[in-house]
């Protein structure tokens, strides 16, 4: 790794660390890892900066995820079946390209030595990735091919030179100093936005990439599809759904909440609005119980450590909001190469909108995982190409373009802290009767409060380095919430995970994308893509 230009001392508060590279990847999950690998394979010098630790960061590392993994001869049928569920918004071509890249890269992982389990035919089973092992393996792979990884280096803003994204700046939160990385292209792989919910990975998933992209002029797409919720043993953060396939649900008085033949999440959400709900994995026989314990051990930690028998006793369950993590929305992609419409800026994984792949329904349980692989690769390749073809002398000045939380646009306002903003976002975005079930008046009330919060944040000044990160996270959470509910207000219908109680039918005229953007003033636009059909 030829990383040039480390010039400053290590004293806290000293001059910023200045580095330069061809491609800068921001993020620390699977999409960031694949972007780094793809860019390095294309001959680029690559730096990855992550807010946390590449290996444990993000939604994948603490999980056990399936991949969408289909052999070529079965793809036509698999894609058509899935497309029928996506509310007419997804694109078969995108699905095929995703499946193709995931297929190739997962086979490559086996060649690289990833210890996939063996199925009953004696073949490696490639359609599942255990999170901690997967991300540990990706970290080692990145280091092996010479990618430089900086942990605990959150990016706070993008750098712009003459209309082209030229890197990013942020802080080294463990050494208390600033950094700037000058880059020929930047990939945002910062994950989705969990609206401050207590789910696995959510601490880092504050929508930072959405905010940075919007400040550069990019727009979001599909943000109304941010109402995916996960069944979770209360009060844990274990938002892992697989074992609930074998659960029965009960009310306080012991009567069954009947989920058979219905959308489990909708039925349980309705029951939770009426009172506490309990679950028990009583549909699992002895063999399944053993596989569940061995294959999903983290799902049993909350119950085992509380002395509860998950199979025999009833325990309280809740629905936790997964925002755009297992929702759909994110940075709108302008092309197949994960470009964003902003020169030099690319987006991958949950930072990007997955609407073209998953439409109005969640991509959780396989598609999102394959999307992280595929989009990471496309973004990494394209960023490497852009950096190579656009090498320029650094005549024009490099300007940091971060706004709210970093460069206050208003005079110091009434005290409104990052913690206040987090509390506000949680209060507006997490309740089932705000977000899971939506109404126009409810959305409008929330938006009014979120807009006030945005303005109040704009008068806050960070006293210390770490406060700047908190304020930026607060701004990103608030902006993401405003885009999500603005899009939800504009989609006057119900479709997929977007459930409007005041518009329960699907409106064929809205078989289109809703794009949102802007910061102080939110813009909303309907956009019909070539692949979007007016069926369903």
């Amino acid at each position, binding site marked *: 790794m030829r990383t040039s230009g480390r010039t400053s001392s290590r004293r806290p508060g000293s001059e910023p660390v200045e580095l330069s590279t061809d491609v800068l990847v921001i993020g*620390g999950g699977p999409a960031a890892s694949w972007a780094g690998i793809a860019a390095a394979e294309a001959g680029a010098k690559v730096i990855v900066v992550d*807010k*946390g*630790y590449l*290996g*444990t*960061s*993000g939604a994948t*590392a*603490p999980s*056990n995820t*399936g991949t969408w993994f289909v052999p070529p001869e079965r793809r036509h049928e698999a894609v058509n079946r899935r497309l029928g569920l996506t509310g007419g918004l997804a694109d078969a071509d995108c699905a095929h390209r995703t499946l193709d890249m995931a297929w190739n890269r997962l086979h490559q992982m086996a060649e690289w030595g990833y*210890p*996939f*389990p*063996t*199925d009953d035919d004696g073949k490696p*089973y490639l*359609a*599942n990735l*255990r999170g*901690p*092992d997967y991300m*540990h*393996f990706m970290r080692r792979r990145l280091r092996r091919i010479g990618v430089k990884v900086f*942990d*605990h280096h959150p990016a706070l803003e993008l750098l712009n030179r003459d209309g082209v994204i030229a890197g990013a700046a942020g802080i080294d*939160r*463990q050494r208390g100093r600033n950094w700037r990385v000058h880059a020929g292209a930047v990939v945002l792989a910062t994950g989705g936005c969990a609206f401050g919910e*207590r*789910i*696995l*990975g*959510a*601490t*880092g998933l504050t929508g930072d990439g959405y905010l940075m992209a919007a400040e550069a002029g990019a727009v979001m797409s599909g943000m109304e599809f941010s109402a995916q919720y996960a069944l979770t*043993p209360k*009060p*844990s*953060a*274990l938002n892992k759904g*697989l074992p609930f*396939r074998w659960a029965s649900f009960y009310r306080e008085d012991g009567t069954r909440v009947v989920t058979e033949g219905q959308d489990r999440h909708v039925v349980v959400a309705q029951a939770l609005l009426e009172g506490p709900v309990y679950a028990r994995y009583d549909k699992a026989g002895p063999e*399944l119980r053993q*596989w*569940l*314990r*061995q*294959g*999903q*051990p*983290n799902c*049993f*930690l*909350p*119950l*085992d*450590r*509380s002395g509860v028998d998950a199979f025999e006793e009833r325990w309280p369950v809740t629905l936790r909001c997964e925002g755009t993590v297992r929702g759909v929305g994110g940075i709108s992609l302008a092309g197949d190469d994960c470009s964003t419409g902003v020169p030099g800026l690319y987006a991958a994984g949950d930072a990007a909108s997955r609407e073209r792949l998953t439409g109005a329904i969640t991509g959780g349980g396989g598609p999102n995982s394959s999307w992280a692989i595929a989009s990471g690769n496309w973004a990494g390749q394209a960023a490497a190409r852009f950096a190579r073809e656009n090498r320029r002398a650094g005549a024009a000045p490099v300007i940091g373009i971060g706004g709210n939380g970093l460069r206050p646009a208003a005079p110091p306002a009434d005290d409104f802290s990052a913690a206040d903003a987090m509390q506000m976002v949680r209060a507006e975005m997490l309740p089932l009767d705000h977000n899971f079930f939506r109404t126009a008046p409810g959305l409008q009330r929330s938006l009014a409060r979120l807009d006030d919060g945005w303005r109040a944040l704009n008068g806050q000044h960070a006293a210390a380095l770490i406060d700047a990160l908190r304020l930026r996270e607060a701004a990103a959470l608030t902006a993401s919430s405003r885009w999500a509910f603005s899009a939800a207000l504009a989609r006057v219908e119900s479709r997929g995970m977007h459930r409007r109680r005041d518009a329960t039918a699907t409106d064929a005229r809205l078989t289109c994308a809703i794009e949102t953007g802007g910061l102080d003033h939110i813009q909303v636009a309907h956009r019909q893509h070539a692949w979007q059909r007016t069926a369903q």
Partner: protein
Amino acid sequence: MIEIVSDTRCIACDICVRACPANVFDAVPDAAPVIARQGDCQTCFMCEIYCPTDALYVAPNAEGPIAITETEVEEAGLFGSYARALGWRNGRPGGTDRDPTFRLRAASR
């Protein structure tokens, strides 16, 4: 949330300080790290499996701290229990080649 760094088990390697994605620990020279930002913990249990001496305990309550002592965790055999269930040892990966989740996926169809 993270509740316990066991002084008796910890070897002050500071791996958890680096590996925690939420940056909840602060290193202390020649001593066990301290839990400096407990409220930032996302209850993901990752620190437990990266710890080479099973010195950390994360309680499953993600909504706030609870009252639990090192002795209680030790007596219940909970130090390192997640790592053992996965097949990780000494802070290093293992066991994913024996993961039967593919059987669950087949059974759930």
